[in-house]
């Protein structure tokens, strides 16, 4: 069972406002090691909500969530933060870098938080990740001096710095132009094929779906079908 990275068991979620709506209805699936899974569906089908539950940031739901065979339900806020720090890398639609810091510092931050290595080791590691994404030349710049595409690549480097079990993305290409989008696709493929990284990406983008190993299609809070590419 060591190859299961993440497992959702009968996850349901309700929104109470303005009226009681079931936004997720009995979602169950498994993500194995080195899988590239994309979740697609229309706006409002609950795919982002699902992602935030799987990311441990949203804890108000029914059902069970396991990350690496460990049951997440009932853990304390601090333990969840630690799990996010060590096991999950995040990429958001709006890059979300800290403008107060340089690119290098942004990438280093989750590793500094984990504090498992010395600052120098972390610096070397962060530079490796930047090198892997071809953006070492940006390392000294402040985050707010970058273009959108550059920011997203820095965000990917930050997601990778702690060598997480899984990288989660919420529309990572949703805000990018065609050229940068293709660049991100390339990076994701490289991550899966060369670095054996596990990815779970929520997306609208058909290209993203087409390059992934498995597509989970959602509608009205339910899994409509799962297709393997």
């Amino acid at each position, binding site marked *: 069972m060591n190859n299961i990275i993440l497992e959702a068991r009968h996850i349901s979620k309700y929104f109470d406002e303005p009226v009681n709506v079931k936004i997720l209805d009995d979602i169950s699936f498994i993500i194995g090691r080195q899988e590239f899974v994309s979740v697609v569906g229309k706006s409002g089908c609950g795919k982002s909500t699902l992602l*935030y539950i799987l990311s441990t940031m949203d804890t108000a739901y029914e059902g069970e969530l396991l990350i690496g065979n460990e049951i997440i339900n009932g853990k304390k806020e601090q333990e969840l*933060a630690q799990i*996010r720090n060590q096991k999950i890398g995040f990429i*958001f639609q*709006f890059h*979300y870098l800290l403008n107060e810091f340089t690119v290098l510092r942004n990438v280093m931050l989750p590793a*500094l*938080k984990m*504090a498992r290595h010395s600052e120098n080791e972390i610096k070397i590691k962060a530079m490796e990740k930047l090198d892997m994404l071809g953006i070492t030349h940006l390392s000294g710049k402040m985050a707010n001096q970058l273009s959108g595409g550059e920011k997203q690549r820095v965000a990917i480097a930050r997601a990778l710095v702690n060598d997480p079990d899984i990288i989660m993305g919420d529309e990572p290409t949703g805000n990018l132009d065609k050229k940068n989008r293709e660049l991100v696709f390339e990076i994701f493929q490289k991550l899966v094929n060369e670095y054996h990284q596990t990815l779970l990406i929520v997306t609208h983008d058909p290209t993203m779906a087409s390059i992934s190993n498995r597509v989970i299609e959602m509608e009205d809070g339910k899994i409509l079908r799962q297709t393997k590419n």
Partner: protein
Amino acid sequence: MNYTLIFSIARALLVSRLRQTLVAAIGVTFSITMFIALLGFMTGLNKMLDSLVLNRTPHIRLFTEIKPNPVQPVSIYQPFRNHYNFISSIKADNSRDKIYNSRVIEKILRQDSRLAGIAPKINTQVFYNDGTVNLTGALSGIDVAEETRLFNFQDYIVGGNAFGLQSNSNSIILGKTLAEKLHANTGDLVQVITPNGDRFPLRLVGLYQSGLNEFDKTQGFASVSTVQKLMGKPDDYITDIQIKLKNIAAAPAIAREYAVKFDTDAEDIQTANAQFETGNFIRTLISYAVGITLLIVAGFGIYNILNMLIYEKMDTIAILKATGFAGKDVKLIFIFIALSIGLAGGLTGLVFGFGLSSLIDQVPFHTASLPTISTYPVNYDPAIYLTALIFSLATTWMAGLFPARKASKIDPVIIIRGK
């Protein structure tokens, strides 16, 4: 907990909003400056007023009150034992104004470790003679050395030399106003007439100014032995024993103890000057109230600025949380921000407060009643500075607590999805 990381993030957030944080810090600086200047000035004034009266007042005074004997012979007389006695218009026996066994009492007192020292004294009424005019006045026989050591006698001598009393027999120190009335300068002879009618010429060796004009108009000082000689009394004749304690607060208890032990009257300083402490207390209270009010206002400033910072940095907080910072870490970041504003503002305030205090200290302040004071009195007690620093940290910590807690509770999902 990785404090260096937390601190570096706090610093980055601070620097990104340098102007606002500077304004907040200046608020703290201002209030700490005023706090220190105010308290330094107020307690300085208190100390000065203390020294005006308390420093030269004995903590305990032993004396024999001239009063009717409460136990009259008729009540001791056996055959009338079971009767009621009514005696009207009892008179005091005037022969007993000295302290009995003064030598023994002094000897015992000198061995009491609670005492800082004792000074014997003789108080008597005299006339000061100027040609045909006799001025009523008081003459005190004192031990100049002890009086100076315990009650700062020397500080109030404005002309001549206090120790002239010791070196010349038949010498006198007069209140400055009294000397002016008598047209006497140091070195002149002053005629003193005792209650018994004897006239003595005494050499004026010094002028005394207490600051209390009523006192300076009537008071003279001579050595104990000179006064004894004037009054024709033996050398154990003492009317007062003045006691200075190591701990002034113990005065009432020790006074009661001595009254019983030595069978004399004993008056403690608290009873004699009750209104004094009340005044001190009220002044200190007002200074603290004003100082703390200033700090609370500065605290609200910090509270506002931190709140604003949190709204501005929602994204940053959300991303920190998403990448593994717990609510506790975020709270700590904002507490750090608040405390560094408090510390920076507070320390600058200490320096400015010291500066303002020294400035006040330079302002000339002359008053006839205070011969030893030439500028405004200021207290540089380190305790004031320590209190100010602690207060500044405490208020900024409190001001930071609520915004920090709010930041720690921010739900990253709402922020990240809300765009």
